């Protein structure tokens, strides 16, 4: 395993993640507007944005959790 793999994210993965996040926030804004206009709940519908931000951070953390650990000093010495 090369050291670069752990230091930087694959550019294609980064682009895919960015596109996914863009779509997610577009969906959040659309949901906020639809719910607020239809049910007239402007005074608390903004909470949707906090929930969405939390969901985004959870997904990011899960993604980070699943990434392989960087090599330790021992791993480097063995290689």
């Amino acid at each position, binding site marked *: 395993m090369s050291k670069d793999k752990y230091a930087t994210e694959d550019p294609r993965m980064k682009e895919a993640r960015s596109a996914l996040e863009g779509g997610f926030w577009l969906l959040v804004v659309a949901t906020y507007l639809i719910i607020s206009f239809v049910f007239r709940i402007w005074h608390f519908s903004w909470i949707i944005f*906090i929930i969405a931000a939390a969901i985004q951070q959870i997904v990011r953390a899960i993604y980070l959790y699943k990434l392989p650990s960087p090599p330790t000093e021992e791993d480097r010495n063995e290689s």
Partner: protein
Amino acid sequence: MNHKSIALSAIIVWSIVAILFTGIFIYFLVGRPSRFSLMSKRFDTETIIEKKTLDSSDIHSLDIDWDAGQIQILPSTGQDIIITQSSYYQVEPFQSSIQGDILEIHQTDSGFYIFPFSRFHSSNITIEVPPMYLETLQLSLTSGSCNGNDLAAEHLYVSITSGRVTLNGRFQNITSELTSGNVSIETNNLPDNLFVEMTSGDMALKIPDNDGFQVKLDKTSGKFQSDFDFLVNPEQEDIYIYKSTSSRKYSVDMTSGHFELRKLQPSHSKAKSNTVIKSRLIEIGYDRNGNKLPPPLLFPWQKTK
């Protein structure tokens, strides 16, 4: 601490945040509405919230302060002032008090809210006033609208941040302050004094043709239009003189916006009186043409039994 434990901590922290705010959101959405909850109950149709009847004999002035909703000032047949507040929401009843000979009517805050859009819960008010010559009629609107027909007042004060005010009748002195919005006033007599201060918005004033007056227009920007054939002194371009240098001096101070000064057509007052009769027939839950208004969209649990 490796990246996995940091990620795990982040998952836990953000999950708590998500659960907490989802809980708050659901509580607001389905929480039992009561005076102490954060949500107002919604009715299927526009419902009367409060109705008050006051003896008009000691009242010579009206001071109305309304934030959101429609105000209707109608002539009544009896000697009492009847105030009816209605809304689609269970809002707080309005407050009224008599200070000397002034009847003050204020919209009350509809409970505790957590965002400026809270005043979306508007309520409408109908004030039935017996035929009387008011000393002062003062209207302060943040938003919403006000309609008044066949009114008579020595002093008319209109102050609006936004919204729409439409009044007609007889007004001897007119003061109007607009931040924005739309004000339309028709007076059957020529006012002695007129003071208009506009930051923005539209104002239309209709007065009868007369023997003369002059307007001092202090305009930064905006538009001034009139039916009257004004004479303008080249040395004093902000003074508009109609017919003669009368003692009636009107003042218009515009930062921006649109001000119209029009001649009141003689047939106009008759047409307006028909509107009065028609508007008195409006019932709660019906529009001006008598058609039933559709109820607002509701969640099943928000419908009243």
